[in-house]
């Protein structure tokens, strides 16, 4: 649910990076943080375990300039991917305006990808959000690894809505901003339509 303040002329939107553990969600945010102009981004907050696994969420606020006289702010969140953190994932999804589903391209991770996608739909439905209409883009990450699934397989397994999809190597930044731009655009188009 975006927050529009007509008085201070601001739009706030919430983007959640979803996907199985270790697929590269935190890496996406870290790359965006490093590459963004410091004027356009706030502090990145990571609530992580000592071994740098996301415990609750990562948070990165961006302010991207004006659209029709409104300052636009996007709050990026990641969820913890491990199956047993489901309660936390549900909390972070509250009020989401758009999701980046980050998949791990490695063949051995296909079941986890599918399971996480299922989990996303269930958790959205639980909050009364229509998982078939919420702005969503797909990112197939870790394209650099040798045992990666083919694009057509990833598409067939995960992209049943046929939403925009991107190949990525988040570690080196490939595809990271393309993905971000696509979800922002999707959200703004959705906003234009007057919401869900």
């Amino acid at each position, binding site marked *: *649910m*975006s*927050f*529009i*303040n*007509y*008085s*201070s002329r601001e*739009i*706030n939107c*919430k983007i959640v990076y979803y996907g199985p553990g270790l697929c590269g969600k935190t890496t996406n945010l870290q790359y965006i943080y490093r590459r963004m102009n410091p004027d356009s981004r*706030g*502090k990145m*907050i990571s*609530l992580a375990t000592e071994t740098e696994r996301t415990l*609750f*969420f990562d*948070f990165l*606020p961006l302010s*991207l*300039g*004006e*659209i*029709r006289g*409104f300052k*636009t702010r996007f*709050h990026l969140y990641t969820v913890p991917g491990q199956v047993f953190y489901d*309660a*936390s994932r549900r*909390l*972070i999804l*509250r*009020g989401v305006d758009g999701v980046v589903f980050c998949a791990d391209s490695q063949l051995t991770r296909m079941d986890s990808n599918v399971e996480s996608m299922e989990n996303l739909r269930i958790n959205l439905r639980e*909050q*009364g959000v229509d998982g078939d209409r919420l702005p969503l883009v797909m990112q197939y990450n870790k394209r650099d690894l040798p045992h990666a699934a083919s694009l057509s397989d990833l598409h067939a397994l995960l992209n049943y809505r046929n939403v925009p999809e991107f190949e990525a190597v988040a570690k080196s930044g490939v595809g990271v901003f393309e993905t971000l*731009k696509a979800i*922002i*655009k999707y959200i*703004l*188009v959705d*906003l*234009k*339509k*007057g*919401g*869900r």
Partner: protein
Amino acid sequence: MAQGHFILYDKEFQGFQIALKKLLADSYAKIVFLVDKNGSLLASAGETADFDTTSLASLAAGNIAATGGLASLIGEKEFSILFHEGERDNMHISVVADRLILVVIFDRRSSVGLVRLRVRRASTQLERILRDVDEKALADEDGGIEELTEEDIESLLK
């Protein structure tokens, strides 16, 4: 209200600001701010320049969400008041009308009892304003920003 946007117009925004300023003064706090449960900052008052309010807003919402999760595990609806005590500064976090989060940061010049008292009064006022926000939202069904064009969106993403 679970759907669509949360739209705040000038009158209610000013109302929130005035309520927060009064709370700030009455409770001798350093800073007070109002956040929605998704972590967006709605309004604030006090020494805001000294704090990263965006991060504070997001973490306060995460804090309420997490303790809310804990509450439901033990059969409680929600812990509607949280109090964090620091060496210098303390933080009082409370839920207003199930939807908003009111945060007060204060030091030795004030006390938790006083803050709690003043927060209760401010909450009533904030709830009243929130009702006006809801009424406007109902009157203005689709809300949103109708005039957005493809070009607007493209220019933002250049």
